[in-house]
């Protein structure tokens, strides 16, 4: 039974990686001189240029999970996931037109300050609390998830990578405030893009020796990796099915079960991205840092234009890595940690060893047959009849599906032997394994730095926005309303340190509990629709007042909770459901308890 290869991370890679960390932290700490009060600490004295805020918006959204997970998803399911982002450009246009002017009517520092001006302190406190709860869970996961992969790649314990990302991010964010966050995000975004370009170049260079561009796309298409737009959903049954107990037969599929298609992406995605960019403090804070509203709009429109193409390219990179594996170096299991688990178990348990060896032999045969099918197609040439080419592509598709089934089988065997948790796989380990296997020294260090950069650029924004919401919406609002600016700044720095420490400790505790990531996504989708609904009430329903908005907010969360417990509906739709529930309840209540304009 073969195990993981020797780790190829060299001294040169460590030097590149360490130089990047020193550069980022030193520059972040240096920015502290601009933060003399809360205006400087949370809004960069409103002097941040649009391009820096725009790149920071993109870096904040591009977490390490995006870099590692999206390429893995491209490898396994192709371009399908790009549909998740289809609502984003339209959402950003709406944020620019409707919400940017709203946030700039007064020099606010937290998105939820506006809600107090419009409704009252209860709605502001509840909305800020909703944000804090969702973001604080997500912060722990943003630290934990990439740390697992980085630890495997570097051959160090997970706790070491969690502590490195957590401590370094906390240091420069505590000292430098939002200016440090934004300008380190700019550097981090440059490194992320550089790392992706390097990987793209390497995989294309290796692939073009085997196939030309059109042949490569035809092979990818045959394997179902280019299904970027699904216009017809899996089911047109619009009555949602009830949830069933584990073990019971699943009900027939409905429209709401299909996770990614054009409609869930455009409608569910629109609501999700509206809530993320318009109501989540970690993004709204970018709008508040620019000198004018138009600078804020330009910052957001940069994402509106670049985000969907960037995600498509990252997914295509994953799909190209899959095609590369057709020709070279297809592994049964990606990721050294899982390989070692299988090797150790096989050494200790003869029954598992026999099963594993059988799977390994069949996988090697399936890989050879898939390669033969790919070569048979490319050798046909362009002159072959369409029927002949289609038959050849169909044969390739069958061989590709057979190889994938065997890779799934190995994880089933490991799950049954209780070596890995249920529903395990190696999707998130495909990209790390690829770069370890194929990148030369220095470039490998650069790409590892890019993954660290992606982790830090999301963590720093989470940290600064959590601090901003806590200080502005609670400390300054309720505890110390008359504190001096100096005292406020000291409290902000201390709280930033506490949030950073808390998230790092939380991430250390998460270790091993893979389902926490799903839990966090679920919690996030409970909240976003509710927040968006509350802002929609503020904007479009002038009759809605203090209590109607507050009860509407609570009703929105309760509705999403009940729907989640009873119906089979994919999470993107929760954002629509939450928004509609808040607007309906708040709007109807305003008839019996109208706004008190006095």
């Amino acid at each position, binding site marked *: 039974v073969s195990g993981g290869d020797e780790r190829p991370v060299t001294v040169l890679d460590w030097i590149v990686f360490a130089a990047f960390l020193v550069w980022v932290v030193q520059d972040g700490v240096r920015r502290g001189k601009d933060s003399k009060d809360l205006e400087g600490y949370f809004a960069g004295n409103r002097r941040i240029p649009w391009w820096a805020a725009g790149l920071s918006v993109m870096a904040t959204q591009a977490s390490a999970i995006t870099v590692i997970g999206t390429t893995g998803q491209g490898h396994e399911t192709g371009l399908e996931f*790009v549909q998740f982002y289809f609502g984003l450009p339209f959402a950003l246009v709406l944020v*620019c037109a409707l919400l940017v002017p709203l946030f*700039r009517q007064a020099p606010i520092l937290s998105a939820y300050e506006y809600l107090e001006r419009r409704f009252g302190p209860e709605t502001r406190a509840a909305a800020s609390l909703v944000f804090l709860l969702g973001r604080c869970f997500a912060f722990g996961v943003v630290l934990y998830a990439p740390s697992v992969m980085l630890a495997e790649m570097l051959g160090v314990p997970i706790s070491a990578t969690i502590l490195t990302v957590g401590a370094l991010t906390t240091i420069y964010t505590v000292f430098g405030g939002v200016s440090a966050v934004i300008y380190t995000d700019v550097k981090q975004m440059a490194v992320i893009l550089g790392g992706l370009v390097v990987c793209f170049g390497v995989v294309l260079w290796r692939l073009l020796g085997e196939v030309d561009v059109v042949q490569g796309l035809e092979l990818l298409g*045959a394997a179902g990796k280019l299904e970027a737009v699904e216009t017809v959903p899996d089911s047109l049954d619009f009555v949602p099915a009830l949830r069933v107990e584990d073990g019971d037969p699943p009900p027939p599929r409905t429209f709401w079960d299909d996770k990614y298609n*054009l409609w869930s992406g455009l409608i569910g995605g629109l609501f999700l991205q509206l809530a993320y960019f318009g109501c989540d403090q970690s993004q709204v804070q970018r709008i508040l840092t620019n000198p004018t509203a138009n600078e804020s709009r330009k910052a957001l429109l940069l994402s*509106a234009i670049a985000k969907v193409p960037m995600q498509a390219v990252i997914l295509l990179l994953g799909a190209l890595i899959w095609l590369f594996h057709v020709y070279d170096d297809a592994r049964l299991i990606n990721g050294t940690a899982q390989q070692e688990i299988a090797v150790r178990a096989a050494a200790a348990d003869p029954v598992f060893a026999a099963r594993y060896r059988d799977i390994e032999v069949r996988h090697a045969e399936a890989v050879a047959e898939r390669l033969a099918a790919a070569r048979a197609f490319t050798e046909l040439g362009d002159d072959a009849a369409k029927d002949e080419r289609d038959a050849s592509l169909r044969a390739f598709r069958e061989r590709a599906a057979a190889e994938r089934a065997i890779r799934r089988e190995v994880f089933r065997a490991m799950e049954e032997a209780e070596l890995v948790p249920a529903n395990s796989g190696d999707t998130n380990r495909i990209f790390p394994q690829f770069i370890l296997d194929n990148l030369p020294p220095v470039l490998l260090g650069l790409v590892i730095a890019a993954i660290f950069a992606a982790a830090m650029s999301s963590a720093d924004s989470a940290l600064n926005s959590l601090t901003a919401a806590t200080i502005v919406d609670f400390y300054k609002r309720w505890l110390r309303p008359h504190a001096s600016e100096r005292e406020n700044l000291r409290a902000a720095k201390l709280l930033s340190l506490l949030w950073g420490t808390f998230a790092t400790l939380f991430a250390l505790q998460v270790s091993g509990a893979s389902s926490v990531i799903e839990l966090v996504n679920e919690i996030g989708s409970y909240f976003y629709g509710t927040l968006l609904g509350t802002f929609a009430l503020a904007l479009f329903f002038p009759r809605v007042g203090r209590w109607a908005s507050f009860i509407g907010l609570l009703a929105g969360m309760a509705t999403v909770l009940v729907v989640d417990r009873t119906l089979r509906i994919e999470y993107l739709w929760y954002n629509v459901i939450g928004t509609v529930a808040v607007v309906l309840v708040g709007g109807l209540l305003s008839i019996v308890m109208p706004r008190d304009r006095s």
Partner: protein
Amino acid sequence: VAVADPLGPERPEDDVMSIGVYLAVCAFAVVFIALLWLLTVRFELGGTA
């Protein structure tokens, strides 16, 4: 929407983005999604060769 922005230029009407910019961004998104759809149908098995 022209609103008083205490942080922006003195004349709020100077701080309004033209609707043409928004339409251009939306048009770009629609064209990109259409290109992805063309990629899907061109390379799906049995698609237009």
